[in-house]
């Protein structure tokens, strides 16, 4: 029963939401909005689980010599952000908490994002080799798209036109083909879950 009841709940709610999609009445809209609200509530209830997992895992790692330093930094940062946020005014601009956010967290996030510039270069160096016909086509297309950033005078105008065609015709066709496949795959996965064929997300004893 421990396994059957969740499968039954998934099946019934799955079919109910499928039918709800085709019914435009007020009570149908209410069911949809109500279920969306519950998704948010479940997410909020699960947040303490995440915090507990994070703190517990890193407290355990304090005992491990190689991991100790990084876990200590994580736990220290976590405590500082929580303690500095306790007062109402700490969320206003100019408070210590907001200064930590604006002048520590935000620049660090931007720094990690900026790693992309370096990694794109190294990935391109490794991957963009004309090993086959398809790889050569990929290479030439990449050149044409990258060339739009380089001022080439009158050639830039021609390049922009070619780029617009590449982006609006073959790129669009490939995007739509992948999207159709994804749409069907998502439908199949959802059907498998609703019908109880796919159960790996559920645990059992």
């Amino acid at each position, binding site marked *: 029963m421990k396994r059957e009841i969740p499968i039954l709940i998934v099946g019934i709610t799955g079919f109910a939401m499928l039918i709800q999609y085709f019914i435009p009445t007020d009570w149908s809209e209410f069911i949809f*909005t109500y279920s*969306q609200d519950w998704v948010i509530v479940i997410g909020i209830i699960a947040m303490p689980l995440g915090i507990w997992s994070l703190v517990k895992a890193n407290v355990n790692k304090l005992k491990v010599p190689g991991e100790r330093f990084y876990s200590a930094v994580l736990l220290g940062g976590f405590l500082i952000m929580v303690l500095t946020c306790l007062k109402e005014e700490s969320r206003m*601009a100019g408070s210590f908490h907001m200064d930590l956010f*604006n002048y520590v967290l*935000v620049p660090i*996030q*931007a720094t*990690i*994002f900026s790693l992309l*510039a*370096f990694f*794109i*270069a*190294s990935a*391109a*160096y*490794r991957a*963009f*080799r*004309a*090993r086959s016909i398809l790889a050569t086509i990929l*290479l030439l297309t*990449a*050149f044409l798209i*990258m*060339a*739009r*950033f*380089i*001022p080439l005078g009158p050639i*830039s*105008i021609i390049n*922009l036109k070619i780029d*617009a065609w590449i*982006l*609006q015709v073959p*790129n*669009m066709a490939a*995007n*739509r083909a992948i999207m159709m496949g994804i749409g069907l795959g998502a439908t199949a996965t959802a059907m498998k879950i609703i019908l109880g064929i796919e159960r790996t997300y559920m645990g059992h004893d």
Partner: protein
Amino acid sequence: MNIFQKMMQIDRRWVYLAIGLAVIIPSIKSFDVPVTVSPEVKRIYDFVDSLQAGDYVFICVDYDPSSMAELNPMAVAIVNQAFVKDLKAIFVTLSQFGPGLVEQITSQLAANHNKINGVDYAFLGYRPYPAITILAMGVDFSVPFPQDYYGTPLDSLPVMNGIKNFDDVKGVIEITSGNTADFWLIYGNGRYGFPLAIGITGVMSANYYQYLSSGQLFGIIPGVKGAAEYEELVGFPGEGKAQMAYQVIAHSVIIIFIIISNVAYFATRKRKAGLEGGNQ
């Protein structure tokens, strides 16, 4: 190991060093980069340019600080153009980091153009759940936003007199680094049919050109290059144009590395074939 084999196995740190220099050099000695304007950017400029003083334009700022470098220049350029043309601008954000960014843009540019909050523009604030918020705004802006970001009731703002929902604005421009553009396409343009344009990061642009072809979008500003093109059009050179120097050098370095890698690949391939031929 000959030079071509060494080139094939170049330590990635040399690549990082080259890119590092490519972005440092323009900061020491910058230069102007001539920008060719693409049609999809010009369409947005022409649309805003065609509006009359007093017309309403809706601007949604949905990016976070990590994408500021790429998206802030285009947001500033669009708002500059709107204020110069005396358009009424309504700002909204569906990103949790958006309020600070909108405040920064509006307070700075409003001061430059003598625009008054509540009279010439309004910032409605932030709401989560983009789909629900967009659908509600399509009925009435005051449903998800009974007050503006500063707590003033919407019906007491002079700029909100006479406008109720998307039917009363000439178009929506969404600037985003996430997936909120999809919500605007489905629930905004798809449901209410208003003209929609987006400003997005360069890496996202390949995904959205198909909506340009289908007519669901009337314009796209892709990344820093798009921002530089828009600044070129409005005549307010800003961060977008300044960053083009970095873009040109970095892209040139990447292209050079790709050429080196392919030269080395073909050279080592020929050499292998030559040796094999000899062994045969």
